[in-house]
């Protein structure tokens, strides 16, 4: 019996009159990698922010291991610590060294001692292959390195699920590979992930399910094979075609 880590139930969100999410529902199981893709402005980032309540929805519900994040009794800050978030623009803490960016969560939020938190952070840095860079400040690192620190910051919290919001789209092309590689590694270790990305090679390699969103609704879902061989909806076909023109074929090789 597979356990549901996240349940998104009929989520709606509007900014003023602009309906951004119009009834989104899906479940994420333990160890699953979900890839969400769709045109810019379709509501992908909003969806991720709703899942960890950085943006509370107007209607609907999000459950983390069966517990509602909308429950007024729920301690949102506590629950949020179980949901990692990797940002498009990294959002590292500028005044902290790489290692401190990673250890601050375990120390302040999980209540580990400084030493324990440092050990946890070091292990997380090893996972993203940044253990030699722990004493650098964010502004002294490349975008790819910063994003790997961002991933380590999430990993160190030992979360139930990590949300990725276009983690490679702010990177120079030559830096994308190192970040995708780290994401592949942690996906293969069984990390539960929801990844908004247009990197079809990544999706092909590890996605259990792909979700195609447009205009605030889920238009089509399916396995990577489904989408690469015979997508059904006109909009998905169109969009995938545009992506291939932009980014090249899904076959784009990543070492696996």
């Amino acid at each position, binding site marked *: 019996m597979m356990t549901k880590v996240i349940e998104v139930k009929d989520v709606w969100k509007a900014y003023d009159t602009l309906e951004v999410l119009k009834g989104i529902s899906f479940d994420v199981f333990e160890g699953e990698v979900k890839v969400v893709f769709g045109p810019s402005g379709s509501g992908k980032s909003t969806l991720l922010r709703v899942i*960890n309540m*950085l943006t509370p929805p107007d209607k609907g519900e999000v459950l983390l291991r069966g517990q509602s994040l909308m429950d007024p009794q729920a301690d949102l*800050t*506590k*629950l*949020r*610590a*179980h*949901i*990692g*978030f990797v*940002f498009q*623009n990294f*959002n*590292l*803490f*500028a*005044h902290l060294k790489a290692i401190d960016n990673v250890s*601050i*969560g375990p120390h*302040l*939020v999980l209540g580990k001692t400084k030493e324990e938190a440092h050990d946890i952070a070091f292990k997380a840095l090893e996972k993203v292959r940044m253990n030699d860079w722990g004493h*650098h*400040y*964010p*502004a*002294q690192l490349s975008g790819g390195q910063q994003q790997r620190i*961002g991933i380590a*910051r*999430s990993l160190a*919290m030992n979360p139930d699920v990590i949300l990725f919001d276009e983690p490679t789209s702010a990177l120079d092309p030559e830096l994308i590979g190192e970040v995708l590689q780290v994401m592949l590694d942690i996906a293969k270790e069984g990390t539960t992930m929801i990844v908004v990305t247009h990197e079809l090679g990544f999706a092909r390699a590890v996605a259990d399910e792909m979700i195609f969103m447009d205009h605030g609704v889920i238009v089509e879902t399916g396995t990577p094979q489904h989408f690469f061989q015979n997508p059904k909806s006109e909009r998905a076909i169109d969009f995938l075609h545009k992506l291939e023109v932009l980014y090249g074929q899904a076959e784009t090789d990543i070492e696996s």
Partner: protein
Amino acid sequence: MRPTSPNQLIGMLQINRIVEYLPDLWNGLSMTMGLYLFALFLGLGLGIVLAIGRHYGGPIVSRISTAYIEFMRGTPLLAQILAITTLPLALNLDTSWRIILQDIFGTPRITVDITILLCAITLGLNSGAYQAEYFRGSMASISGGQTLAAKSIGMTKRQEIRHIALPQSLRRAIPAWSNEAVYLPKYTTVAYFVGVPDLFSAAKLAAGRTFQSLTVYSLVAVIFLVLITAISWILSRIYNRVKIPGI
């Protein structure tokens, strides 16, 4: 060698007379420095609290902070000092409290009394309002992304302010805040108007008695200039030491 003319002789004698007032000037300088440091640090603490209140506080706290800041910056400092230092008299309170200590020349002097204390506090309350605005500016310049990141790893708002926002905004505020630190010694001269024996009032006394206004005030100007230059230098050293590498 040209013989010294009588006028020059009198001039020299008068300059020598300034020497008599050097202890007064020294004590005045000490008073000015005392007022300055007290007001600067009171204002620093208050400024940080006000800036946090204005930037992060709820609607009520933020409005109270804003009202305070606008009131203190919008009314003349001299009026504030006059109003507050006459308060004990107006309320018929006992104003005889004072601390008398020997100065470095061995003469007993009033080091602190009610007027001096109220004057220092008012300077601090006023400076706090200006300092708050420098801190608020730097708080607003911290990227919202870092706030989201702090939330996303489960930090409380308090932890986010304490561990993410403040360490960055306080560092960033230093260059702008230096303005306040540098100009504040000048503003302490309003203490003269309520009879506090600061550097300026010592200068006025010495100038009046020796008829050497130009010399005395030039001396005061030089002292202020040295003071301000030293403060700027110290602050830029501090800033370079604490600023975030790579930025």
